[in-house]
Each structure stands twice: as structure tokens, then as C-alpha cells.
């Protein structure tokens, strides 16, 4: 692809994005406006994440893409191929081998290390958006640390349902200052956000970038008498037997029989490769032959 620059975007655009990333890292949780470009995939397909990855990738990087935790979902494949083609970077499905991981809706189960970068695709970066549709208003609320509306919403949930009725994109408080949308990851993943890796969030259509430097304090919003509860299906993975991973529910026949399997395909395969076999599992070679 000699007609396009390394990783598709031209260098001026990458510089603009890197400036936004640096600002975002300097003010954790603050949404930095950036001049998002049209990308060759549609808005909503991860254009924000793709632009952040493009501005972050170097030729030496190893790139991994997951969607719903899996490397082989169609959109993850499409984005991985895009960078194979435009940046000619090495790719991997192994969490520990990747230097940059672009993700949609999950944080890998394997703990990330220093030197790794996790890039999130973000549809609606504004955690207050569904409480207040106006950008001018929500920016003011963040500036004044005026988060009363959010606490009222969470309180109303408890009053009505006895629990906070948010299962994914569960809002967090970053370093005691900004309320941040963690992107639509299940709340099960929220506690993992205090990690050693750099976390970058790109929202292409909404033209916002935000970030969490390593070891930033990230607290899921809750109340003393209703503490945050990172729930998941109460089953082990049927393939690898893991009891600590987030599970997808798969309907296996017309009678509605269900099985629960790891949403993180790399985690599940690695476990099976090392001999952890669940009730319905086999060694990975046989499954994927």
C-alpha cells in the first residue's frame, strides 16, 4: 500500500492526535476534543480506536484486536487486517505478546503489564449524556465537578430496583476528579482498570479522546450501603473451567439449552492448552483443526 502513509493517517494528523493523547494522559479522565478524521470504516465501527491506534503504532509493535473479548469476531478481524495492510505490523492473538491491544467492550482477562497499551473504542464518551443531552451543559458540569445528577440517577435506581441498574458502561470516578465512561465494558471489568498498562480511549464520531495513565485510581461509583458489585454469570466456563472470567451465554439447541464460555478467546484457549478442560471442552488443537 504505497499510496497511503504508515498506518493510513498522514503525519500531521497523527501529530494532532498524539497531542490530544498527551493532554488526555496529563488530565486523567478529562475528555479532550480532537479533529477526528473520516476513516475508511464507518463511525460506530471503532474509528476513534483506529485513529488512536494509528497514532500510537510504530513498525516494531505487535498489534492485537478484540471485539467482545474475541480475536475472531468479524470487526476485530477487519481492523486487524486494516493495520496489517496499512502499517505492516506484526499481529498476535496472545494478550501477553501484544504491545498495543485495541478492544471493543472488554478488558482482557490476562493482567496487562507495564509497556502495554490498551486502546478502547468508545461510542458515547460522555458519562452524563443520558442525563443531559447538551454538550455545552455537560462540559460545564465536568468543569464544576457537578456530579449531583449522576448520584441522583444511581440513587433512583436503588430506590426503584434495589440495585444500580447499570450493567455495562458503568461510570467511574478517576483520580477523585472526573467522572468517566469506561466504554461499554461489562461492569465485571471495571476493577481491572487500575492497571500497569496505559489505557487510551478514542471516540471518533464524537471527536473525543481520554486516557488513564498506569496505576491511576479508578473507582466505580457506588454508595456506602450499596457497594459496587462486579457481577457475572454464576457458572464456570464450559470449555476451560475458568471461574474467574467473564462468560458469554451460548444457546446450543432449539430447546434453549445454554452453555457458558469465556468471552476472552485467548484466555480460554491458553487455559485449555495448559490442560484446564471444562465439562464440554477439548484440547484447542482438536476444536480448531
Amino acid at each position, binding site marked *: 500500500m504505497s499510496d497511503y502513509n504508515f498506518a493510513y493517517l498522514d503525519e500531521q494528523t497523527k501529530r494532532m492526535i498524539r497531542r490530544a493523547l498527551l493532554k488526555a494522559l496529563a488530565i486523567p479522565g478529562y475528555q479532550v476534543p480532537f479533529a477526528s478524521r473520516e476513516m475508511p470504516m464507518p*463511525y*460506530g465501527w471503532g474509528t476513534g480506536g483506529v485513529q488512536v491506534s494509528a497514532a500510537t503504532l510504530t513498525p516494531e509493535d505487535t498489534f492485537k484486536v478484540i471485539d467482545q473479548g474475541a480475536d475472531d469476531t*468479524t470487526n476485530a478481524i477487519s481492523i486487524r487486517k486494516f493495520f496489517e495492510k496499512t502499517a505492516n505490523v506484526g499481529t498476535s492473538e496472545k494478550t501477553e505478546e501484544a504491545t498495543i491491544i485495541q478492544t471493543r467492550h472488554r478488558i482482557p482477562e490476562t493482567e496487562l503489564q507495564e509497556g502495554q497499551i490498551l486502546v478502547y473504542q468508545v461510542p458515547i464518551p460522555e458519562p452524563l449524556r443520558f442525563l443531559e443531552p447538551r*454538550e455545552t451543559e455537560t462540559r460545564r458540569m465536568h468543569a464544576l465537578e457537578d456530579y449531583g445528577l449522576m448520584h441522583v440517577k444511581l440513587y433512583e435506581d436503588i430506590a426503584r430496583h434495589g440495585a444500580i441498574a447499570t*450493567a455495562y458502561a458503568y461510570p467511574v470516578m478517576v483520580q477523585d476528579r472526573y467522572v468517566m465512561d469506561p466504554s461499554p465494558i461489562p461492569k465485571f471489568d471495571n476493577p481491572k482498570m487500575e492497571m500497569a498498562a496505559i489505557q487510551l480511549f478514542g471516540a471518533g464520531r464524537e471527536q473525543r479522546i481520554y486516557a488513564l495513565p498506569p496505576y491511576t485510581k479508578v473507582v466505580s461509583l457506588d454508595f456506602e450501603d450499596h457497594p459496587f458489585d462486579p457481577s457475572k454469570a454464576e457458572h464456570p466456563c464450559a470449555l476451560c473451567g475458568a471461574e474467574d472470567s467473564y462468560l458469554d451465554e451460548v444457546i446450543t439447541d432449539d430447546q434453549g439449552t445454554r452453555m457458558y464460555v469465556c*468471552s476472552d478467546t485467548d484466555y480460554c484457549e491458553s487455559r485449555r492448552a495448559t490442560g484446564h478442560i471444562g465439562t464440554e471442552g477439548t484440547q484447542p488443537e482438536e476444536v480448531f483443526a
Partner: protein
Amino acid sequence: MYVAVKGGERAIDAAHDWLAEERRGSPEIAELSIAQIREQLALAVNRVMAEGSLYDPDLAALAIKQARGDLIEAIFLIRAYRTTLPRFGSSLPVETNHMACTRRISATFKDAPGGQILGPTFDYTHRLLDFALMAEGLPAAAPGSGAPEGVTSPGAPPPEMPRITDFLNRDGLIQEEHPDAETPPDLTREPLEFPANRALRLQAITRGDEGFILGMAYSTQRGYGRNHPFVGELRFGTVSVEAEIPELGFSIEIGDIELTECETVNQFTGSKTEPPQFTRGYGLTFGHTERKAISMALVDRALRWEELGEDNAGVPAQDEEFVLSHSDNIQGTGFLEHIKLPHYVDFQSELELIRKLRAEAQAAMHQEAAE
């Protein structure tokens, strides 16, 4: 077992092959050429150029062919191509006063200097299917007395075409537009921030979705922020684009483009700050895109309520955040269609939440019944 979600890579490749086959249609039918699309589907080409924000009829025709006639998809192809183009300068503002007009009409004056030029328009056609067009392969009918001599032919620069609104301006009957020395912001290089100035609003609306802008404009006509528009003037034609070359120190003509320009004259009974007078709305679009240019002028006028000291009626067309945040069809279609992508993880967490809430609610009901 667990095979349904596997094999995405092969599925994508097969889908792309299938799409290519569908795009071509029956191989027994001759393939469309880019030139045919450019010449015979010119209004589709114009729309793709206007909303794609790239003036290139050949590429727009290619995009339409590749997109199988889906214009929003074609606009998307053009936008994605445009974003990769280097930017080596800006043109001088185009002089629509010197437009070589193929069409120029005013709805406010029966006649005016410069004359009414009807031009190629659907306006007074009867919308009856012309079955003669189905008889393909016949020799083309002899051209009628269509394009008059000299209207579109190149040569001497066209004489200045006076503006209808200038006649009203001379009498002080219409709100005056003041030149703005400020460089307009660039929507494609800076993130959209609110409040937006008028230049930025116009920029967003001119590349906004024709259907959305039409709907917004229509809503003002039906009473959601009425601003009583008249088409003061609508003109379509060719203007030359000039750019200043730093090495030369003067500007040279780099090409011609076709534009549609609409100025509306809107009734206005005055406000706390302004005397009763007419006000203006403005629309300017690439190619022959009249519906869009007129819609744009109405929406522009509605968005000027604050500047003119009008009341905010709380209607959608007056709300710049609402209009500008939702007018881009590439953003809109992307976000809308992305819900086709897998959402297993989010759905799973919702599923668990709803089961938990139901279990608790049922337990509470049983307890109440027992008591």
C-alpha cells in the same frame, strides 16, 4: 459445539466476493461506465460531491458505481478518500457575483436586472413516466432549442450578475450582512465545538444530509420556528476558483466549479434590538443541488435567532447543537448501523441484571403473599 461464532475471516472474504458479484449484476447486461454515470446521473453525482465535500465528478461517479447506487455509501467512499488528501493551500473566496448562470430565478420580483433564467429544471415538468426513455439503443433525438448559445460556453469572464437582495439592501429594507475578516473555522480539521459561529454552521449544513436538512427546513415552514421565507434568489452556474500562489504573489485561476446559491428573504417584525426589516438565510452547495441549497438557507435563518434577537421557541431547527450534531449522514449511518455489530458482552450483562432484578421482585411478591 461453539462453532457459530467462529470462521469470521472466511465469512468476510466470501461476503466481499458476493458483494462484488451483486454489484456487477447480470453479466449479460453491459457494464455502466464512469462517464455514463457522470453524464446521465449528474444530479446523483452532484449530491455525492456536495455531501462528500469533494468536488470531483469522476470520483463521485466511481463512488456511485462502487456503492451500487447507494448514495450515502458513495458519500462515505468520497469522505474516506478526501480525508487522505494533503492540503496545500486555500482558495480565495469564490465570487458568486460573477457566476456564469445557467439558471437564475427570483420569487420576489417578477423581473429584475439580469433577468429570470429558467434553465434546466424539473419545476414545470409533468411527472409522467416518459416511456420513450425505455426505448434504448435508438439514435438520440435531435437536440431541441435547449441550452442557448453563449450561456455556458467558456470565453470572456461573465458579466456581473446583480443580487436581488442588494436591491432591498439599497433601500435599507433588509438586514445588512457585514464582511467578516476572520478566517472561518474548518470543520474537517478542528473538532466541532459549541456555540458555533455562522461560518461553521453553514459549513456543517452544506455537507449535511440532504434529507435531514430538508426535514429541518420543512419543519420551520410547518410552524416549528416559522421564519416566512421567500426565495429572493436562486442561482446555479459556474464560478472560477482562484488561489494565491505564494511564490508569485498574486492569484491565478485554478479551475471552474459548479455551485448552487440560494438567498432567502425572510419576514421579520423586529425585536428588542432590531427594527422591522427583512432578514436573510443563505445556502451554497456544490453542483446543481437546489433542494439542498434552499433547505440550507431556511435552516441557516432559523439558527440565527439569537443574533437577530428573536425568541427561542425551543424548536429543533433553532437548536444548533441538535441540528449540527445530527446532520452528518456518515456519522449518523455509522452509529445507527453499528448496532448490527456483536454486542454479546453488553447483552449478557443486561441479561444477568434483568434475571437478578426479576428474581428479587418475585421473591418480594411471594413474601407479600405469604404475609
